[in-house]
């Protein structure tokens, strides 16, 4: 096909938009290669290879704007794209808050964040198969009660993103990601339970060993066997790190400037207020080397940075892209995310609660009767009010010990109250994903069961 680089295409599209009357424009071009291999019960089940590219052009006609995106990179299609984008922009309403960031806010020369590992793109299907087999075998060999498997899967992707805008920004970066996961099925007395474990990294060498992933997955499935319902009660609830991470996810949604200006956040109007105990800090940091949520610049060309969101329990920032910042009379925080087919929106980068000093097992030991949550299901979170009600599973704590597995229960409360009621934070933070937390203990929630 054409010998144009992605950078050339971005430049051409910006020029085309101008020629068709756009007053400003920006372009995202993304390209990626991926490999997915799945094995099940000791043999290869699926192998998928793909190469994909996509681009999006946002054109402004004064304060009006529209986005056109395509995977059709033929010259004729690109020529038409610029004309169509400007025409579509003209049907929208003028929005005085819209527009590109000021040139002074833009990121300078890209800093290397170690986001790209060439080894990820060089993994062969045979290598990936061997790792999957090793993980699944470790899970199946762990215990006679592991009777079935949904398999193990390896995924790898290498990406190149170019972002250019008529305010003068033109940058690009490469990134890679890889993951290995395993889903064994355990059974006992005619009932089955499955669970999973995984490792995800930007660098291949940092993945956990296949055997440890398989063994952990098996242990997680096995400990669910014989789960029962418990009676409805108000008790302390300890969230394991992955589940605590989901609470951080709700916090990230609520401090998003987009949700705040729309009135769809239970934290709207609470900036500067103490919303959690004074030992609680939360950060958004897009500059962590190797971080799964890191990037050198955001979806509008602003540098990423470290933003304290909770400091000493006080809500200290909303995360903003340029639009949300203008709506809220604040400064953008380098949190614009941009998919090729959509206008920028606010998204956290690496969003985390730093580790505390209390060993996680002491959080469990401090509970006389309560729930250790290892699984949450469903979408029962009302971002506007903070009302929270989700399906849950885990282990019941009796006299400080994990006593027996429980399932088919719900936990409910209100996120505002839940954050206030955080009693302790564990010392076990591992940056396994872009939003994460250590073990968290909440003083009291409603557990509904039989």
């Amino acid at each position, binding site marked *: 096909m054409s010998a144009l680089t992605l950078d050339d295409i971005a430049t051409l599209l910006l020029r085309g938009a101008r020629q068709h009357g756009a007053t400003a424009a920006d372009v995202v071009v993304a390209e990626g290669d991926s490999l997915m291999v799945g094995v099940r019960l000791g043999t*290869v*089940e*699926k*192998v*998928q290879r*793909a*190469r*994909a*590219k996509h681009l999006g052009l946002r054109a402004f006609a004064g304060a009006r704007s*529209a*986005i*056109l*995106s*395509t*995977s*059709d*990179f033929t010259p004729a299609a690109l020529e038409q794209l610029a004309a*169509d984008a400007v025409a*579509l922009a003209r*049907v*929208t*309403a*003028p*929005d005085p808050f*819209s527009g590109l960031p000021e040139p002074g806010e833009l990121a300078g020369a890209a800093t290397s964040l170690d986001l790209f590992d060439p080894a990820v793109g060089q993994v062969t299907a045979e290598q990936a198969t061997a790792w999957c087999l090793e993980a699944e075998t470790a899970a199946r060999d762990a215990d006679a009660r592991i009777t*079935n498997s*949904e398999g193990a899967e390896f995924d790898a992707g290498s990406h190149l993103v170019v972002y250019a805008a008529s305010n003068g920004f033109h940058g690009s970066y490469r990134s890679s990601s890889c993951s290995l996961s395993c889903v064994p*099925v355990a059974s006992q007395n005619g*009932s*089955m*339970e*499955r669970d999973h474990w995984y490792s995800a990294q930007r660098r291949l060498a940092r993945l956990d060993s296949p055997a440890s992933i398989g063994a952990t997955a098996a242990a997680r499935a096995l400990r*669910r066997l014989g*789960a029962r319902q418990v009676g*409805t*009660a108000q008790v302390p609830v300890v969230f394991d790190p992955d589940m605590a991470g989901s609470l951080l996810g709700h916090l990230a949604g609520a401090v998003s400037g987009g949700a705040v200006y*729309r009135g*769809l956040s239970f934290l709207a109007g609470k900036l500067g207020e103490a919303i959690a105990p004074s030992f609680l800090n939360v950060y958004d940091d897009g500059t962590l080397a190797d971080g799964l949520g890191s990037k050198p610049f955001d979806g509008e060309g602003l540098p990423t940075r470290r933003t304290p969101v909770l400091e000493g329990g006080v809500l200290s920032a909303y995360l903003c892209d340029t639009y949300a910042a203008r709506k809220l009379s604040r400064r953008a925080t380098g949190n614009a995310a941009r998919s090729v*087919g*959509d*206008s920028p929106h606010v998204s956290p980068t690496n969003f985390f609660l730093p580790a505390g000093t209390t060993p996680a097992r002491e959080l469990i030991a401090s509970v006389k009767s309560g729930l250790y949550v290892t699984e949450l*299901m*469903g*979408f*029962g979170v009302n971002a*506007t*009010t903070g*009302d929270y*009600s*989700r*399906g849950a599973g885990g282990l019941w704590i009796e006299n400080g010990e994990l006593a027996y597995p429980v*399932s*088919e*229960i*719900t936990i*409910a409360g*209100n996120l505002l109250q839940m954050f206030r009621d955080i009693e302790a934070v564990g010392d076990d933070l591992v940056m396994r994903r872009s939003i994460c937390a250590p073990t968290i203990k909440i003083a009291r929630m409603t557990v*509904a*069961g*039989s």
Partner: protein
Amino acid sequence: MSTALEPRRFFLDRFALDERVLEDTIGTAIARKADFADLYFECRTSEAFVLEEGLVKKAAKNVSQGAGVRVVAGEKTGCAHTDDVSVETLRLASQTARTIADGSTAHAPVAVRAARPSHDLYALAQAPLTAALDEKIALLNAIDLAARAHDPRIVNVMASIGVEQKIVLIVNSAGAVVGDIQPLVRLNVTCIAEANGRREHGTAGGGGRVEFSFLSEGDRWRGWVKTAAEQALRNLTADDAPAGSMPVVLGPGWPGVLLHEAVGHGLEGDFNRKGTSAFSGRIGERVASPLCTVVDDGTIANRRGSLNCDDEGTPTGRTVLIENGILRGYLQDRLNARLMGVPLTGNGRRESYAHMTMPRMTNTFMLAGDSTPEEIIRSVQKGVYAVSFGGGQVDITSGKFVFSATEAYLIEDGKVTRPVKGATLIGNGPEAMTRVSMVGNDLKLDEGIGTCGKDGQSVPVGVGMPTIKIDAMTVGGTQA
């Protein structure tokens, strides 16, 4: 107009290919010891318009096109896809996909013949994508005005329109070539209400494989605006939901998401072939009360979950999943049907050319029973009446499922009394369905905004149900 559009011609022209390339590519894919292979061409054009704060702030148009090659040998699947479709990339993709199959290469082209899908479920006079932009913008503005006029406590309105046309062509190693042109329209409305320092929202919407004018016929959109606004207003005064096990009455239509989660996913062929579903190996057994008959039907005209053919070119059908409480069948794609030795059901679906095919639902619903909705409510001493849901999730292995109410009421002494806040309901699929003690005579399908997620892939689906009563279910409120 789209009536002139023929998928095979469309793709050959668009990618500058000729018939021989199709025959060669499928021949290359099946050259080793494989059971079957297919090519999937797709061109999806979509438009989205979003209004908030009284302004149509966003207009977007996307074209996503490409081709996927799949080779199946036993339980193994090899896939490759590309968005840069040419003779060269198709051959490369076929060679990549066939690496999962053993045996030496004995290449021969496969003669292909055009077949027509056996249904014509969404022949439209005008494709929704071609409706005038002005009409789409005007509708969003009218929705904003109507919602704000409904009640002064409605302080903000968000409305979005999504319109798409997906052209697909499936060529398989048996020589069949099947194409389809799939229109889709969706309208969503969210109203935010505020009073006495409390803020709540309500949502509604609808659509289907219909013309754009469907949204306005019979003042449909006004109905959705009213539903969203009143849900937001009612939630302003809702009390905390109860917690614990109690009788639950589900309203008709969208609450059918219960079936989607409690039984639908668990009856997909892949999980059952692998023996990882709570329903595995239970055909012919009682899994629901005798009042329950549940079907999956992809052949209902103009429904969001309907298709002329699935993404493997198989005509969609009507599959009885549960008949009078007895488990009758699973939902199948080609790979799983072949390995289980059962007929195809037309449920092989993929989100796009870049995704793998899996057994998926189409429109899943329960047939009507004899009770009137009033009788059902009257039979409950103390329980919950839930009429709108935000979505659900299931663990098909343990059978545990949840779905979250966004509009619910208390039933006290046989009467619907106060609104309560949204709460998650949790149950165990095979068990919950045996506790269905009354089924209403008011079967309703949903309004057409459902999307199902499985293994990271989203596809449009429908659900439906009459009013039903479940004798005991765990309600996840805060009032113990």
